[in-house]
């Protein structure tokens, strides 16, 4: 992250989650809406998190597979 303005709301972390800054509603694979609760949220991209749609660090021990299609809506 640099001092560019505006501050990025979404950051794709290589081999890691999507960081989502601010308050959003995340829709998971089953169409269920999840409201973010912290200043920055990490969204699972590896598909292995036990707390989807949020990242729980499992990507570090999981075998990589196709990214899941989580989309976000304000």
């Amino acid at each position, binding site marked *: 992250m640099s001092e560019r303005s505006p501050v990025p709301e979404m950051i794709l972390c290589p081999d890691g989650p999507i960081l989502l800054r601010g308050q959003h509603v995340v829709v998971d694979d089953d169409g269920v809406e999840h409201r973010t609760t*912290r200043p920055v949220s990490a969204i699972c991209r590896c598909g292995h998190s036990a707390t989807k749609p949020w990242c729980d*660090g499992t990507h570090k021990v999981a075998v990589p597979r196709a990214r899941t299609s989580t989309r976000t809506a304000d």
Partner: protein
Amino acid sequence: MLIPKARGSLSAALFAALPSLGPDDAPPPCPTTADDNADEQIALWALYELHYRGFEDADAELEWHPDLLRLRRSLEIPLEQRLRARYAAEAVAPDAGPTLAASVFALVEGHRGPSLASYVQRNADLEQVLDLLRMRSIYHLKETDPSSWAVPRLPRASQAALVELMYDEYGCGRAREVHSDLFARALAACGLDDRYGAYVDEVPTEVLEQNNAMTLFGLHGRLRGAAVGHLAAFEATSSLPSRRMAQGLARLGMPTEVAAYYLEHVEADAVHEQLATRGICAALVEDDPTSAGDIFFGAFTCLDLESRFAAAVLADWGVGS
């Protein structure tokens, strides 16, 4: 809290002098060297504590007593030398990844050491977990406080990322969600003493050394790289172990408040490890490329001291690591 119990002749002389010492008094002569590391670490821990909340039985102005600062320095120098020697001896490769963040994650991934969380997940009994919570309380009741010292020493982009992380650690404006408060409630739910520093007299030297390293890095502006490197490694070794802790606590039927503390860290630290590596540390190196070495030194120190702590605890429990 009260001044802790001495662990040797240097800490005994220091702790005997503190209650009656005024900010302008010359302290009575102390031994110039500690008996051993336990004596040294408890003396340094207490001198550092003057910069946090202090002691009910010591004058708050002693925080800036020149003779105590001189003594503190004499204890900090060998600690930093020892930590740096361990880092040098491991010969970790800080250039393992294409980016600084990848290198920090590679350092963490490559580190091998015993895991208390894995033991708690599968094997620990209730007494062992309570024992561990008492030992963890020394840090968790001041969680993130040592990292706060680094804020004014960092370039703006690092400050922005660190304070964003800290806002979450300090409960996003809600006192009952400050992580140290979550841990205090976890202790209370288990029938343990939730007062700050309550268990310092019974924790092993390794706990004091872990805490002292964080304060050393935090209080010295020249060690800002080590401070944020330590934070990055701490966060990057938290989510998965916190999940294992929560599973072990559930296995033992412990109060939900304890699991809640760890489950909060599963999600929070999956965010924080990214902010710490990609935000705080990467921005510092961009501003000051010479800080990379200390970032890896701080990260290694975090991993190494936790391994030493885990090995000591498992040995004390009679468990081979």
